[in-house]
């Protein structure tokens, strides 16, 4: 989401919280995804924790040798007949895709689901050049027709129910008004078949890239992704550099964790392992395969002693499925490509803490995200550390830090807090006379003008006794 469209933080929160329909759709969906995940782990896995540990290790190994991995991938992928492109920024990545389209005289590409393309703002970039990127993932298609953005990284249109989708298809595709999933599918299928027919360039993301094999692994459920990568003359795969791992075995470990975490499926419906363009004798497949390896601040993240851990992310969405804030406000409130706990960690790293740092308050630090993350990213700890960076106490400066206005009032309040909390006499004095929250109100009111709002929603208790006096009356208690 571009900066110029950004709503003030409180407005975004309020508007989305007030959207009852979205909240109901989301809460229901999240509860189903949670149950599915638990069930598949219980029923089908003997050593889920062991698998997590292995995945963490495999991914860390790849990250610690990323230079080597990337060069090895380039070498082997090239040997396999693929074209490897390097992009350092989001714009570079868009430009490479644009150039390929120009060269091939294509004014349209058909896309499989790819969060990476959202991250680099591809659709928008191409649109400005008069070109079209058409979504083929069912959820993405609904959103594109509706001029909406994904609310979730795995199930982009999960905030919409089938009645709303039926309405969209009626309004935008001229279909008859339907609400049965089968009928909606049929409408989408017919629409997409036409799109596939004259397809020249298909674009996909990449789930895992294997450097030893010079191959990529794509996972999907609808079959459209397979169309985008095989039915076209040209396939472009957009791949963040952190997706490159060493071996097929390593990637397989990750795949085992991905769909159970995401939707509770044991295995994905489609596994596509692409080793290169169509060879002599092959019945289908594109004649050209291009891989765009893009950095977009990932190298910077890798160099950070804390946030490199978030590069293990396999975009399963489990952290958002289990986040008690996400299911109340939905993904749009974050106003960045990646919402939820992982979004809170990577958005400031990818787009700058000045632009996205406000979302760091969307977390009660309940720790459920860290608990479910299949690759053991300590999300809650990282969110807390990011708050520290935002407050200006971090050792390594984050992207966009130079534009940060540190909250002086909050810093002042925290120094006051420290002063009272390291001085028993002062503490006793303030609490002895206090109404609950008094110290907080006194100390933080300048920093947190919303403190009044707490009591707008909730009743506060009243104070009855002087603890210090009462404790001294108890026998067997030494007050010292």
């Amino acid at each position, binding site marked *: 989401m571009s900066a110029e469209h950004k709503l003030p933080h409180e407005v975004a929160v309020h508007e989305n919280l007030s959207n009852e329909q979205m909240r109901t759709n989301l809460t229901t969906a999240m509860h189903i995804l949670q149950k599915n995940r638990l069930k598949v782990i219980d029923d089908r896995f003997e050593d889920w924790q062991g698998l997590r540990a292995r995945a963490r290790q495999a991914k860390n190994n790849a990250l610690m040798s990323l230079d080597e991995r990337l060069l090895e991938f380039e070498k082997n992928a090239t040997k396999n007949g693929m074209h490897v492109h390097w992009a350092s920024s989001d714009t570079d990545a868009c430009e490479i895709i644009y150039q390929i389209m120009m060269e091939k005289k294509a004014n349209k590409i058909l896309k499989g689901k790819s969060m990476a393309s959202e991250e680099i703002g591809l659709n928008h970039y191409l649109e400005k050049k008069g070109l079209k990127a058409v979504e083929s993932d069912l959820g993405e298609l609904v959103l594109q027709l509706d001029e909406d953005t994904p609310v979730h990284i795995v199930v982009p249109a999960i905030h919409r129910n089938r009645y709303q989708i039926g309405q969209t298809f009626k309004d935008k595709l001229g279909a008859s008004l339907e609400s049965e999933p089968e009928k909606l599918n049929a409408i989408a299928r017919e629409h997409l078949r036409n799109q596939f027919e004259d397809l020249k360039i298909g674009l996909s993301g990449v789930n895992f890239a294997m450097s030893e094999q010079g191959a990529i692994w794509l996972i999907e459920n609808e079959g459209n992704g397979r169309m985008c990568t095989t039915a076209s003359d040209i396939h472009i795969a957009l791949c963040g550099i952190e997706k490159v791992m060493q071996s097929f075995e390593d990637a397989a470990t990750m795949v085992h964790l991905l769909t159970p975490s995401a939707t509770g499926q044991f295995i994905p419906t489609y596994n596509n392992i692409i080793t290169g363009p169509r060879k002599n004798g092959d019945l289908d497949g594109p004649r050209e395969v291009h891989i765009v390896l893009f950095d977009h601040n990932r190298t910077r993240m890798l160099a950070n002693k804390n946030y490199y851990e978030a590069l293990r992310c396999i975009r399963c969405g489990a952290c958002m499925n289990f986040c008690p804030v996400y299911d109340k406000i939905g993904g749009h409130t974050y106003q960045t490509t990646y919402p939820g706990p992982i979004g809170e960690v990577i958005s400031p790293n990818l787009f700058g803490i000045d632009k996205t740092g406000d979302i760091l308050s969307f977390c009660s630090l*309940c720790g459920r995200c860290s608990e479910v993350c299949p690759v053991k990213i300590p999300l809650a700890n990282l969110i807390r550390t990011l708050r520290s960076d935002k407050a200006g106490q971090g050792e390594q400066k984050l992207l966009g830090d130079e534009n940060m206005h540190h909250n002086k009032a909050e*810093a002042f309040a925290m120094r006051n807090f*420290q002063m009272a909390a390291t001085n028993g006499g002062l503490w006793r004095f303030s609490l002895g006379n206090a109404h609950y929250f008094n110290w907080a109100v006194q100390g933080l009111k300048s920093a947190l003008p919303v403190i009044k709002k707490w009591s707008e929603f909730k009743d506060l*208790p009243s104070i009855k006794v*002087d603890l210090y006096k009462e404790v001294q009356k108890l026998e067997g208690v*030494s007050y010292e």
Partner: protein
Amino acid sequence: MLNKVYFYATCLGTAAMQEMVLNAIKLLRKEGVEVIFKKNQTCCGQPSFNSGYFNESKEVALYNTRLFEKDYPIIVPSGSCAGMMSHDYIELFKEDKRLDEIKHFSSKVIELSQYLDQVLNVNYEDKGEPIKVTWHSNCHALRVQKSITSSKNLIKRLKNVELIELEYEQECCGFGGTFSVKEPEISNAMARAKVNDIQNTGAKYIISGDGGCLLNIKGTMSRMGLDIKGFHLYDFLLKRLEGAKL
């Protein structure tokens, strides 16, 4: 053997839940435990830690390690503060040369229900009427201090109390310390969801081992005008043992 312990009242206990602190100490006294109450105790440092003010939090942590210097168990009637002192302090000091000092302190910290359940293995005689209650798990107690099993074990020792579990027990109630102050509207939405879940059990009592969550849930229920009563675990236990009216 006579046990001697430090009692850590927590800032919320001192500021808003004095009865709970007194009752918690009484539960220890009932087992013959000798209690030291440090009058200069303050706060575990969560407000600054969770807001990212690590420098300030470190000073508070060091203050605590020095105040509770002797090798007695430090009993905390809150999974949240116990988790902070037994685990998060170590995270906070992981690259600090004073880590060993911190680790020593952290190893002494234990949540009260864990102490009653696991160390003292208390024997409780329930003098109250038969009732149904439900239980709210504090996130930090659940995932960091891991004291929920012990808390529930204590309730299960009461023969006239039936415990009905919440359907979405593992969901946060929206307190989260400064979170509820910084994002009051989201916090309220979370608290309402929690209260719904509580209402769905049909129980008239909600018990929790954490002051913050309890204030949050009770404050919301009272604003909604519900006739469900919220109790802190240690208030509840003492009342049952004394046969007092709830």
